[in-house]
């Protein structure tokens, strides 16, 4: 589904990614871990098309096409979803309106009919229950006055509604207590299926107890230096990143 080959990227001329390779197939969950400044968020942003990054070398092929050639919204229409680390507030924009606009613009782009109000509300209610997001937050403006945990649950609600083929979660677990993490994980696990793939960017192993990955990768200095299964995450939790980086350098 997604093939990243020898990806190099810079921000303001400073190299961040230095030859990253990654293969993600449908149905797989990949966790990307690594120390601060290793390029985890940069990777998430480049895949979603955020401006401010220059790809200097390499390629990203998604569903047999050049992902990097697409606009931000075109990627969203193709099923790329980024759960943001810092979801922004949209003052004056009702959350329900935003969700409907979002779902319908994706449906329109795919040549599907827009959802009518009744079936849309039904679907939102059902998904909101899944992430335990209270009704009153659906009526409020997008993320306005939401707590950190509520913002993250709102992200997962959007993901659940859009049912993306490639979901990228950028440190969705940061700032969450155990209960909130469990709720978020439930939402994420509900989307797991043979058609959907996920890239979970995280600092800690904690989330991976709930969302069990098929692969764990260590990103350091802009490239993946080690890959393994879930046990690698536990090893990292125990011993830190130092030893992997040393081994990779040796």
């Amino acid at each position: 589904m997604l093939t990243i080959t020898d990806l190099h990227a810079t921000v303001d001329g400073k190299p961040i990614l230095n030859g990253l390779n990654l293969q993600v197939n449908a149905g797989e969950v990949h966790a990307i871990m690594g120390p601060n400044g290793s390029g985890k968020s940069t990777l998430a942003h480049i895949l979603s098309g955020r401006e401010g990054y220059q790809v200097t070398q390499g390629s990203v092929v998604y569903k047999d096409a050049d992902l990097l050639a697409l606009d931000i919204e075109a990627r969203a229409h193709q099923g790329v979803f980024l759960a943001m680390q810092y979801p922004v507030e949209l003052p004056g924009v009702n959350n329900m309106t935003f969700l409907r606009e979002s779902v319908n613009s994706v449906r329109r782009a795919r040549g599907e009919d827009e959802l009518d109000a009744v079936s849309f509300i039904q679907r939102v209610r059902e998904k909101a229950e899944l992430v335990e997001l209270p009704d009153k937050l659906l009526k409020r403006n997008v993320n306005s006055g939401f707590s950190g945990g509520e913002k993250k649950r709102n992200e997962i609600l959007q993901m659940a509604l859009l049912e993306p083929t490639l979901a990228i979660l950028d440190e969705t677990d940061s700032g969450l207590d155990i209960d909130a993490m469990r709720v978020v994980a439930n939402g994420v696990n509900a989307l797991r299926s043979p058609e959907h793939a996920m890239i979970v960017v995280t600092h800690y192993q904690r989330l991976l107890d709930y969302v069990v990955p098929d692969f764990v990768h260590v990103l350091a200095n802009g490239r993946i230096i080690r890959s393994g299964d879930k046990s690698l995450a536990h090893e990292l939790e125990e011993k830190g990143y130092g030893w992997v980086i040393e081994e990779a350098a040796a």
Partner: protein
Amino acid sequence: MGTVQKEVQSLINSGYEHGFVTQIESDTLPVGLDEDVIRHISAKKQEPEWMLERRLKAYRHWLGMTGPNWAHLNIPAIDYQAISYYSAPKKKGDGPKSLDEVDPELLDTYNKLGIPLEEQKALAGVAVDAVFDSVSVATTFRQSLADAGVIFCSMSEAVREYPELIQQYLGKIVPHTDNYFAALNAAVFSDGTFVYIPAGVRCPMELSTYFRINEAKTGQFERTLIIAEQGSSVSYLEGCTAPMRDENQLHAAVVELIAMDDAKIKYSTVQNWYPGDAQGRGGIYNFVTKRGECRGDRSHISWTQVETGSAITWKYPSCILRGNDSVGEFYSVAVTKGRQQADTGTKMIHLGRNSKSTIVSKGISAGQAQNTYRGLVRISQRAENARNHTQCDSLLLGDQCSAHTYPYIEVRHPNADVEHEATTSKISEDQLFYCRQRGLAEEEAVSMIVNGFCKEVFKELPMEFAVEAQKLLNLTLEGAVG
């Protein structure tokens, strides 16, 4: 013109849909202004002598005045001798008695503007007075309104048919001495709308006036007077458009509202005059004086305006809250883009006890435009328990536009309660990225955020017009970002 340039040109112009010119033979006075011109206008309208005297008095006063220079506007010198003060489509006899007699070309113009004048095609429940250049060309639903006792007619007709009402009320709220443009209007006004709601009557339909400037080198100077007697209520809406021309045209209107005891007037404006091109060539100068007096106890006047057009807007719809427990409201969305300039706001003058006012102003600025809110809240010595709440928000799109806020607050009673809140914000890159990542195109994202910003004002508009206003806003901001 190269293809690229042409495309750019059409993109810029795409925001203004009403820029066409109606080809119709007109009876237009030569340019210039003197007492003879005023006598001529008065004679054309078959006005009584007292009306002519009032005009001449205003004109003589105007000659000694200078234009306002305090606004945050760059107003080029206006040559008042280069404007024609009267232009009317040619017609037989003295004006259409019924719609069958209205020139089909004119009916067609209003159809194109989405304002069908044939009653069977009209928006249900909305009566229209159509003002074309200097004259009212048609007024719909007059009979059904007359059955309810409501007078809804052109100002010219009112001067002839209801002289006692006109003499009693015209120029009482906005006297000719009020300001430069009010004086000019009092001297040369050519038409407008007169509304009279008798005591206890709830006007059975929305009333509206649609102003259209067509002829080149003319100014439009209309006058509107709405009187709501005790316990009556009315909702009135005005819309305005003009063709695209390279020269500037002047629109200097005066609107007066009077609400007696327990009466309510709701006055809504969707102003979409031609704003000029991207270089700032052409466009309407919209210099308008609007004022309402809550004369009676528990009277209520509400102004709602959506201002998207005009090269320059200078306009402060105000309320004089004379009655005890009277209520004044001002809800405004003012959008400026390209090189547009707007200095707009309101005045709430509290005289009565327990009088209450609300001001909600939303300014949106894009391109190289300037957007200014200017408002006065005055609580007089006898306005015990007066209350005001002002909320004034500015939204900036891009980094070359500007927003300014000038609130004036004068409180002369110790227990007044006056609140002022103001915010300035920008649509951030983060917000746009967030929306686009969820599948919205950039323009959809901007329009969603802008509509959210304006929501509080749009909900005050009559429903049909709220939808129109939203569409207009989306159209106006097309291509305004990025």
